[in-house]
């Protein structure tokens, strides 16, 4: 557990952090002004208001404070560890399978006669034994553990790319909309409304083959990376709008802040104002949103594979495993079991992590 700060330094720590007062007005827009002034507020009246207390917490940046709060949240820490574990699994999939001594493409079931004539594992519980920890795949007979490790790698890879691209574009669009306002805001805003109106699942199903066809003719065998890119592109095309809107709203409220006015007053260029004054204060929202967006993208990607427009056999993929397992669930439920449990754990952990991050950044939300 103590290794966590070391494991996730850039990813988690850098954008963490938010001032209390700032959080109150931007993060929790729900809290009414009366409550902020009339009711006892330990955080402001005690934490910041006093020199003696300030002396005890010398030089803590907002981000350090958020990190301290996060460290106190046990659920958050557990979830962070689980998420980190999944990411490590994805990153080190080749190493893991090498240590495990199997790979994701060898048809162990057929080679070693572990499948019966119906294509089902001979041994009980889906063929779990000392060699094949999670059993073997019915039909082709690949090792499920190796398959799952690589499947996580593919799925997470796609979702991470989608999330990163969506965040990047969303932040850019939001900043432009919020900062320039007026006509630009209107035109860009209506465009993102239009994109939001697309039925996303139908769009994915309809457009994935189209995009792939743009690169390779339908009769040829397409390389895996093209499918990978195509999947990233379709999901990204419909994935950036919500974040864009959020950032826009945030920037709109930040733009009239007095410290931004002070920057205008000192003659700062728009670039400097965006970079120095707006962006650092938008990051926390973006981070929270991104941690909630990623599990969403993972399930969406799995859904696409399940529907047959995602990754194709024999590439190992989380969603593909579900599709496959659905055919065998009556005779071999263990095949469904491992990828299913893994995905539930991952999605739940990631969502809880998102909540924990938000709580750490914004201590005023009382639950």
């Amino acid at each position, binding site marked *: 557990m103590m290794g966590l700060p070391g494991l996730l330094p850039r990813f988690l720590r850098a954008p963490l952090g938010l001032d209390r007062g700032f959080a109150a007005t931007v993060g929790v827009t729900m809290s009414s002004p009366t409550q902020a002034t009339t009711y006892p507020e330990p955080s402001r009246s005690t934490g*910041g208001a*006093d020199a003696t207390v300030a002396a005890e917490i010398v030089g803590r*940046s907002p981000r350090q404070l958020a990190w301290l709060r996060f460290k106190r949240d046990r659920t958050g820490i557990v979830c962070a560890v689980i998420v980190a574990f999944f990411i490590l699994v994805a990153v080190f999939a080749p190493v893991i399978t090498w240590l495990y001594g199997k790979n994701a493409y060898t048809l162990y079931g057929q080679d070693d006669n572990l499948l019966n004539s119906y294509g089902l594992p001979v041994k009980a519980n889906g063929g779990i034994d000392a060699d094949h920890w999670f059993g073997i795949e019915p039909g082709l007979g690949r090792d499920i553990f190796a398959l799952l490790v690589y499947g996580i790698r593919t799925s997470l890879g796609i979702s991470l790319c989608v999330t990163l691209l969506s965040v990047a574009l969303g932040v850019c669009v939001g900043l432009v909309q919020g900062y320039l306002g007026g006509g630009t805001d209107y035109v860009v805003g209506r465009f993102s409304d239009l994109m939001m109106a697309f039925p996303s699942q139908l769009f994915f199903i309809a457009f994935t083959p189209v995009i792939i066809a743009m690169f390779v003719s339908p009769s040829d065998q397409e390389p895996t990376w093209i499918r990978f890119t195509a999947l990233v592109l379709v999901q990204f095309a419909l994935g950036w709008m919500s974040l864009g809107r959020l950032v826009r709203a945030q920037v709109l409220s930040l733009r009239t802040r007095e410290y931004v006015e002070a920057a205008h007053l000192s003659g700062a260029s728009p670039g400097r104002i965006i970079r120095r004054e707006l962006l650092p204060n938008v990051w926390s929202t973006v981070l929270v949103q991104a941690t909630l967006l990623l599990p969403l993208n993972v399930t969406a990607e799995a859904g696409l594979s399940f529907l047959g427009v995602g990754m194709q056999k024999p590439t190992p993929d989380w969603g593909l495993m579900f599709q496959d397992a659905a055919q065998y669930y009556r005779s071999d439920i263990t095949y469904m079991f491992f990828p299913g449990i893994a995905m539930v754990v991952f999605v739940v952990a990631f969502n809880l992590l998102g909540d924990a991050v938000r709580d750490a950044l914004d201590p005023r939300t009382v639950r």
Partner: protein
Amino acid sequence: MSEQLSLAKPALPSQRKGGPLLEVEGLTKHFPLRDGFLFKRQVGAVQAVDGVDFTIHEGEALGLVGESGCGKSTTGRLVTRLLEPTAGQILYQGHNITHTDRKHLAPIRSQIQMIFQDPYASLNPRQTVGTIITGPMEINHIQPPGGHEKRVRELLETVGLNPEHYNRFPHEFSGGQRQRIGIARALGMQPKLIIADEPVSALDVSIQAQVVNLLQKLQHELGIAFLFIAHDLAIVRHFSHRVAVMYLGKIMEIGNRTDIYETPRHPYTHALLSAAPEANPDDEQERIRLAGDVPSPINPPTGCRFRTRCWKAQQKCTTEEPPLLQIAGNNTGHLTACHYPQDPTTAARDEDVVLDPALAALEQNAQESAEESAEESAEGSAEEQ
């Protein structure tokens, strides 16, 4: 009324101060209101500031008082060019800066600075105190001898903070301390004019005095001119050499501190002074209670803007807008925009002015019942005799 003697421009204040630093003429800001589906068109305008003239001399403090919505903050933001004026002009040291763009404004940018109202919103929570104060210096290529950090430490000391707080973040400071940081940021630019927009109204009473004293010290020692915007009449009197009273986007009365506070002429100034409570149980003030709230600046009254709440309003006030003039009996530089000005005194009169209907009714009742009981007791005592 033939009381208008001269059409004098705002005359030089009687004090020591130098030439005009900032001249504002006919300054106007209308915020357009748009409505309509898909294609928005203008359906009206919030007339936040509507033709304001004033001059600030070097080293002088001009106070701007008024209630919410009178356009005093907008005026401050127009002067600093945070907002684009709709009409009128702003002259700074004789240069017209009304519509100058950012690049051409650069040479004088550092000379006009602002202190904001909300100490919790005026400092970027993600920057250290050092960054906050050096940022504007970097932008304006101000290279203090000894480097930025040394200068920041000096500034922090000037505003009464520990120079070691250089690396701290705003959330570690109290409201009053944050306001000092904001002041240090403005001072770093070596300004000649500071627009202070309600600089103490968000602070606790005991802290307000600290900040007012600090500002006053800076004003005296560094000779900085101030446009001091506030709703608190007592603080404005304490801080400013001259005072302008605003109502619904217009200046109602402007003059030296003593003119405004001791011999005000405009009924609104009288009402304002009478309404502001003094912490003195023996306060001998005239009692004027207006009715209702300030009207909307979207649709301000015709003629004199104060006429809807004024007890002296007549037909002329509806049709004719009173010009801002030196009325008979006023000192030079004391200008009032009123057709039927009040007597120049604030002492209590025999008759209170109570325009609020509910209040008037209640007081009437109370008086009647008091009289009745007085009569009864008189009768009772008579019978006894």
